[in-house]
């Protein structure tokens, strides 16, 4: 059985749930580890468990602010994610090889996205494109349809340029975490194959944590 990772989880102090509680549920569900990526906030206190990765999700309103924050956090935090959404920010994030993850590039409500040029940068720089499964759980009807169709579009480009992709829950509480098999089932809703989804939950996150593609820059070998 592959080792699964959920690389976008929000914990205390951003939310009222402790990282240890999230990890307990995630481990029970079959994850090997999680990464705490609070918005612009690094968990400073000693994390007892080696299965919790310290990360940060950078939220910026302008490209300049984004670059400043990336420079600030780079080297201090093992996992750098960028809060995606507006096209300009997405583009700036994938152009920067220091960024590990572009979280929900379609925006949390399916409004933005990456075009073919940005996707090529993502593949070259080893910036993982995140498919936020949490957005599918918390919406219904027309809104969910819009999110699904923008995810389908992204998936097409990800496949074409062989950019790394990951699946995350974007959980804010222990009730937002879904077991790996359930996440894979949700990923099939927007056209991801089972194999792709399994890799997006296990191999690729693991490679991100080991910075595999940052050293070698060989996305093709995936």
């Amino acid at each position: 059985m592959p080792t699964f990772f959920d690389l976008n989880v929000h914990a205390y102090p951003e939310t009222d749930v402790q990282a240890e509680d999230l990890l307990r549920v995630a481990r029970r569900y079959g994850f090997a580890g999680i990464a705490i990526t609070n918005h612009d906030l690094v968990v400073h206190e000693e994390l007892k468990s080696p299965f919790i990765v310290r990360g940060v999700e950078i939220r910026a309103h302008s490209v300049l602010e984004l670059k400043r924050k990336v420079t600030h956090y780079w080297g201090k935090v093992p996992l750098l994610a960028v809060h995606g959404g507006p096209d300009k920010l997405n583009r700036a994030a994938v152009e920067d090889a220091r960024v590990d993850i572009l979280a929900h590039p379609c925006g949390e409500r399916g409004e933005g996205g990456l075009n073919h040029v940005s996707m090529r940068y993502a593949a070259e720089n080893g910036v993982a494109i995140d498919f936020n499964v949490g957005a599918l759980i918390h919406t219904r009807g027309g809104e969910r349809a819009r999110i699904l169709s923008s995810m389908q579009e992204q998936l097409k480009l990800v496949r074409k340029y062989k950019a790394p992709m990951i699946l995350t829950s974007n959980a804010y509480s222990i009730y937002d975490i879904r077991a790996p098999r359930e996440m894979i089932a949700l990923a099939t809703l927007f056209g991801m194959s089972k194999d792709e989804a399994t890799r997006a939950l296990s191999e690729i996150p693991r490679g991100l944590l080991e910075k595999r593609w940052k050293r070698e820059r060989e996305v093709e070998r995936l």
Partner: protein
Amino acid sequence: MKVMRYVPPSLRERRRYLLFELMGEREIDKRALLKELGDSIHSLYGDVGASEIKLRLIRYHTRKEGEGVVGVLRCAHDRVEEVRASLACIHSITDARVSIRVIKTSGTIRGATRHGGNAASR
């Protein structure tokens, strides 16, 4: 009086039984779960999809305080992934936040409820 429809075993619909676990903020009523699950399936797959999935709740068992619920669902044998997705899409029932996962699938109720074996998330 209900007439038993007899169908020879070789012609019966193939089914899968799913052992699931529900973790919630509060105790969840069986009816509320069924309603939410029906809504979720309809929202994702519509009437036609729901008719093909053929979902039934077979067992529903509340465990000790704070340990949630386990139960068995039945569906068509080739629609397990659809049910999984519908279960995953449920985020709250009667305003209590919940999360549901499938522990095990099997072709028989006995297989789904039996201990050991491939009881892991696979």
